[in-house]
């Protein structure tokens, strides 16, 4: 592995686990600009900063770099406070109108970190369920203060309020094949609607429902896997997952998890990311179900893809030519990049990639024929 990447991982692990970065890895110097750039692309800048703070002063990055990073830390800390405030306000709005809400990902996962404010701040994903979805949309619109354009997909309604992106979820996630998706929605309803067995997080004096751990360890995994297969993900998503597994080690049933993974056809994918979580990010192996389960070069390929694509594929997109404005030329552009992406994915998950590609092409063709 290339030196900068090794050093980056050394610092990330130190920040993730509160350990001391090995100074020997930095004795022969470091390309700090490259490390910081990697950290930004992987959305783990402050974790890396927590890591380099454990190095002897003479091995740390320059004053300029450290000041810029700390300026970012200040803004990120303030973003966390704003996000938590909006989260309470939104939860209160929904709950007082009879809608039970569950906070998916985001701030709910941040609390698993040693310093939650070292996690890059994002948006609010709030599960309201199919039954209350329309009412939830109406409530947030009537409440006012929305900025910019809103949008809606099969999965959620997206809007911006107080500078914060909010997604009201009718479903937590979707699976590609209809029969798999039916099973997945039933499983989600069992945990998020029927059971009511939530973790509760009290923030700013208000109780926020978080998903049950048994649901969350698989949900968080499947969510990032979906993005990995479509646009790309960064290490931040894996960090969220490993901190969740670590913080809640022993609090979920391994056999039930295996059963669920098998029923959704996710065992090969779990094994690949399990290897990344343990071998690259340092999760204690005893806390990773299905480890060791050698995923060989596939884990390395998946890791390389994450390093290349960055958060939601933004690093790779930045290096591409812009999408043509024409309708069909734009569709061809997307198709071309989807083919390239799937060729890389085929080396990691051959069967699933073929299935996903067929589904993608089918849906894309239907959309193109309708001119949508």
């Amino acid at each position, binding site marked *: 592995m290339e030196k900068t990447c090794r050093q980056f991982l050394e610092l990330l692990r130190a920040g993730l686990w509160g350990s001391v970065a090995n100074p020997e890895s930095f004795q022969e110097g470091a390309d700090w600009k490259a490390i910081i750039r990697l950290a930004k692309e992987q959305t783990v800048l402050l974790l890396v900063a927590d890591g380099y703070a454990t190095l002897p*002063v003479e091995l*740390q990055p*320059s*004053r300029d770099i*450290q*000041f810029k990073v*700390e*300026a970012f830390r*200040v*803004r990120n*800390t*303030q973003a966390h*406070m*704003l996000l938590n*405030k909006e989260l309470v306000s939104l939860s209160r709005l929904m709950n007082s109108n009879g809608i039970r809400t569950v906070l998916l990902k985001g701030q709910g996962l941040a609390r698993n970190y040693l310093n939650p404010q070292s996690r890059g701040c994002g948006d609010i994903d709030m599960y309201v369920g199919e039954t209350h979805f329309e009412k939830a949309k109406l409530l947030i619109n009537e409440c006012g203060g929305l900025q910019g354009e809103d949008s809606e997909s099969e999965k959620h309604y997206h809007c911006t309020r107080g500078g914060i992106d909010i997604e009201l979820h009718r479903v937590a996630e979707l699976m590609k094949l209809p029969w798999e998706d039916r099973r997945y929605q039933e499983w989600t309803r069992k945990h998020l609607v029927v059971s009511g067995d939530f973790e509760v997080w009290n923030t700013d004096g208000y109780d926020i429902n978080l998903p049950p751990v048994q649901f969350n360890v698989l949900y968080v995994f499947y969510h990032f896997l979906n993005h990995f297969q479509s646009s790309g993900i960064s290490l931040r998503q894996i960090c969220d997952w490993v901190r969740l597994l670590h913080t809640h080690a022993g609090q979920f049933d391994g056999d039930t998890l295996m059963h669920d993974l098998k029923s959704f056809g996710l065992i090969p994918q779990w094994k690949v990311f399990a290897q990344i979580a343990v071998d690259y990010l340092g999760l204690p192996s005893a806390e990773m179900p299905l480890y060791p389960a050698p995923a060989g070069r596939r884990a390395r390929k998946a890791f390389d893809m994450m390093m290349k694509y960055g958060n939601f594929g933004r690093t790779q997109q930045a290096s591409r030519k812009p999408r043509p404005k024409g309708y069909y030329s734009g569709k061809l552009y997307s198709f071309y990049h989807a083919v390239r992406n799937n060729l890389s994915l085929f080396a990691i998950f051959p069967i699933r990639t073929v299935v996903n590609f067929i589904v993608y092409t089918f849906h894309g063709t239907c959309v193109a024929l309708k001119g949508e």
Partner: protein
Amino acid sequence: MKFRKGLILKNICGENVIVAEGLENIDFCKMLVLNESAKYLFEQVNGKDFTAEELESLLLERYEVDEAIVRKDVAALCSSWAEAGIME
């Protein structure tokens, strides 16, 4: 005089730096570097009302320095703090 709420002192790259946290400081993104004596004063009076005379006394107790110089330095310091926006 009083410092605004939410100021904290950090050590960044061996330097003493004030940053502002908290919702009340959402629009305040500055970072202020303090020398050792300014750091000392900040630690002594942060969170309390204080006067320039109190700052002068603190410095005179801690350092062997001419009173006139201290008066001038404290005036300059208070002015720079006000300009930086860290006072209420």
